[in-house]
């Protein structure tokens, strides 16, 4: 199989699997789900690292650094605010920090 076909198949498989799993997430948690997805969309950091490594000139490297800043913010604050929110969801009779 060519690389292109594999990539398209991976995309389809991930989309379908993700769709099924996310369907099970209760609407109670839809806001943390979205911020969690923000964190995951920061996966583009991998792409930014790869292209920045290829860049030879200063312009390319600066552009790369800007993209890395944007993607890093997604990853770190995406997981960070999601964690903050999920810790707030407490059941009846539970006190103190969430049950993580």
């Amino acid at each position, binding site marked *: 199989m060519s690389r*292109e076909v594999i*990539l398209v198949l*991976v*995309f*389809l*498989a*991930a989309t*379908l699997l*993700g*769709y099924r*799993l996310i369907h*099970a997430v*209760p609407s*109670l*948690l839809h*806001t943390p*789900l*979205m*911020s969690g*997805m*923000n964190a995951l*969309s*920061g*996966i*583009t*950091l*991998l*792409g*930014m*690292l790869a*292209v*920045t*490594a290829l*860049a*030879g000139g200063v312009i*390319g490297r600066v*552009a*790369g*650094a*800007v*993209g*890395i800043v*944007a993607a*890093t*913010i*997604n*990853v*770190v*604050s995406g*997981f*960070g605010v999601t*964690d903050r*929110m*999920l*810790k*707030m969801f407490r059941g*009846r*009779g*539970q006190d103190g920090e969430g*049950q993580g």
Partner: protein
Amino acid sequence: MSDSLYYVLSAVLAVGVLYGIRLMSDVKTAARGNRFSALCMLLAIALTMARTDLRGSIAYIILGLLVGILLSVWMTVKVRMIQMPQMVGLLNGLGGLASAIAAVMTLALGAAKGGFEVVSSGLALAVGALTFSGSLVAAAKLHGLMPPKPRVLPGHSLFSALSALAMAALVVLLPLFPASAALLSLPLALLGLAFGWLFAVRVGGADMPITISLLNSTSGVAAAIAGMALGDVLLVAVGGIVGASGLLLTQIMCRAMNRSLAGVLFGRAAGPSAAPEAEPVPAEGDKPAEAPAGATLEDAKAWLEDAKSVVIIPGYGMALSQAQERVKRLQDALSAKGKGVRYAIHPVAGRMPGHMNVLLAEADVPYESLLEMDEVNPDFPDTDLALVVGANDVVNPAANTAQGTPIYGMPILEAGKAKHLVICNFDDKPGYAGVPNPLYQPRPNVLLLLGDAKDSLDKLLERV
């Protein structure tokens, strides 16, 4: 590192991310799932850095990572729960920006070898750019930096369609002129930015949950397509997951508002202007500011006294007035007297999916009390008291009857079926959809408390 080892590790990490999402299907394990996904992401970053020859760019890469981490820590600590919609909007935009930059650099550095890679780069650039500008507009509207009202320009839909067509044409042209790929990426980026802007300026208010969900999806799709351009399996897989999640939420939001996605994308914004002239319900012109004919606060006191079951219906007005602490206090006061208090959460209440749940969780409301629309609706006829706090369209019975209005056919919380109803809203004007609410008409079992929700709740608290 051999390629096959890399593919195996990528597959393991992608499955790990999916496992983390699976843990999010239960509120008890959700926090653990999020941390597990974060761990997989960290390993993916380490894996990429280990197998890439970072060469002379290492200083720029480390600087970028450090600045990003510092800004993130600051944002994560500072952001308030009421600001979560604009936070998610901003992060959608930054994800799009990063994917767009990755795509431009792929083209400019000649890293895209074949036609598939070049077309993928072009698509990732277009989707990333429109996600970036659309998200910034949405976040600015939510943050009050731009007027929140929908803005429709003359020929709006025409310009949207033209920019979409021009983008498609440029993406097709890219592989035909490989030498000028970098040059062609400039108009492509500008068109993407223009399309995103055109898309987001004409949505506002209650349409925001759909917009934010859709941009959440496109930020993932942009990453996945950038991954195709770079041949990075992990990027493709995780980007695809994000795209699916955003799309699913968009569908849920559209269904909850009885809107079609195409309708939101290409006009037909259910703005206030869409309200029809002839109304089945006569809207009173001027009313006294407080408690019009019908029930009085003393009636409400008796209702609160006698009620065994109470359902509270929060809306965006509760968030605006920051009344969730008061709501929790009322819940505690009623629970202390042995009354059952629950919350009815409409899927589109607030400005993003799940917004109300997060605000109430922050106010220490236990999640067992937060019910979805389908769970709670059959209970309303047996509910002694329904209390609406800053919600309007989501309880408006006109949605069932007023054909031709923007909310017609939208599923609502049937608060009007409860034995007694207290409405704490800022004013008695129609909600965002512009359709007058028949519940506001004076009736002996309905009390309308106008003004700031906090003050209205205080009045009720005094009478518990």
